């Protein structure tokens, strides 16, 4: 059985969050560059140029791309032949978040008692942690600093199965129409279909980890992704909501079977600043 030390996990999490907040993934940057060319609105193109310039300034000065360095979301795939040694795994992850947010001069945005006192926890913990047990002897860690503005526009519904494709398209498009301009477009839409209510939102969130603009390998789902993207981009919201032809960069759908009575659908909204980073131990 392979041993992985908790302190290694803490160090890894600390550096992943610092990197994620400063350096955007290349596929996100490439997608924004394409958008800056195809956008029809002059103000929209200027806005996208500012976004790209911002990414370069962040890289150059080691500044967070966005000041909202988010809730620390951590996805772990733990090989069943791994033994976590030297402490408690959850604690190791939270120590990593604490360390990364301090060393990286990242903003601490978590508050206790969200319904009343809203007192800052001071170190951006606790992280939101998802772990799965998978075959193998490795630990895959993916981190996602998730900003509040876009997360606030995420929604979940359980629709009558009879609504099918059209019901899903209408739900996503009307959601973007309602609050897309608040979520820092151009957006990346993470969409979950199926499972149970909590599972479908997790599918939607995990869909955001895919390479921007990559398609689901299932041809029917790929077609649905393309239709949603086309329809959302007909809304005219544009970069930052100033009006334009690029409201979303991508729609990523993940699907799970569901109960005969149900069709849960979730949208996890992502601003253009789609930050995630991964390591395999």
């Amino acid at each position: 059985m392979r041993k992985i030390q908790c302190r290694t996990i803490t160090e890894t999490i600390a550096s992943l969050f610092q990197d994620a907040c400063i350096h955007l993934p290349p596929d996100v940057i490439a997608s924004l560059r394409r958008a800056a060319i195809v956008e029809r609105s002059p103000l929209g193109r200027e806005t996208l140029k500012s976004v790209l310039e911002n990414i370069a300034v962040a890289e150059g000065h080691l500044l967070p791309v966005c000041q909202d360095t988010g809730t620390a979301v951590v996805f772990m795939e733990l090989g069943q032949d791994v033994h976590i040694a030297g402490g408690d795994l959850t604690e190791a992850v939270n120590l990593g978040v604490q360390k990364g947010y301090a060393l990286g001069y990242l903003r601490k945005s978590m508050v206790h008692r969200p319904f009343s006192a809203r007192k800052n926890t001071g170190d951006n913990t606790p992280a939101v942690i998802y772990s799965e047990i998978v075959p193998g002897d490795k630990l895959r860690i993916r981190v996602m600093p998730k900003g509040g503005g876009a997360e606030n526009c995420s929604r979940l519904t359980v629709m009558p199965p009879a609504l099918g494709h059209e019901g899903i398209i209408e739900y996503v498009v009307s959601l973007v129409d309602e609050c897309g301009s608040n979520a820092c477009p151009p957006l990346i839409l993470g969409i979950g279909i199926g499972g149970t209510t909590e599972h479908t939102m997790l599918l939607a969130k995990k869909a955001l980890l895919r390479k921007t603009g990559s398609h689901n390998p299932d041809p029917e789902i790929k077609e649905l992704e393309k239709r949603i993207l086309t329809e959302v981009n007909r809304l005219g919201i544009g970069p930052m909501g100033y009006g334009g032809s690029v409201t979303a960069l991508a729609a990523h759908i993940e699907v799970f079977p569901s109960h005969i009575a149900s069709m849960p659908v979730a949208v996890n909204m992502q601003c253009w600043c789609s930050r995630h980073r991964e390591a395999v131990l």
Partner: protein
Amino acid sequence: MLVLAAQGSGALIMKVKRIALPISDKAIRSLKCGDSILLTGSMLTARDASHKRITEALSTGTALPFKLAGQTVYYTGPTPARPGRIVGSAGPTTSSRMDKYTPVLLEHGLRCMIGKGKRSAAVKRKMLKSRAIYMAAVGGAGALLSRSIKKIEPVAYPELGAEAVYRLEVEDFPAVVINDIYGGDLYESGQAAYRLA
């Protein structure tokens, strides 16, 4: 003052207006939704928790530790500054969360707000009445916007951390006018111009 700024390849020339802060009545009258502007002068930062504190103070008649009349408020909560830097990343946060508090601030003379995203109908009505203006900065562009911040000093509620009220001295801080005093709203007219569905 109008300046012509050559952007990118030079193929597109956009008019950029330079505006001094605190903003004058004349400047507010000259601005229309969709205008690209560069702001120079001083502004206050405030977001959710500080808005709550400000409105509580105003409703009980407690004096604020700063002057609100004539001011510009920027909705931001910057990241901590690295050693040797003035400020960390400092982009705008979603303005609609401040909508509940904004009418009271407008009654006390707030003239200009900078954030991102749509305002409520009640705030827009109140802005028209108070001849106040709302602008947006590019959401997520916190690193870029931080370069326009030349000075930052704490003004009130330091215990709120990133949510405290700071005074910023800015130079050529880029923004776009969203709601002007003539009823224009870029989020409505901009989307309408490009809407196909």
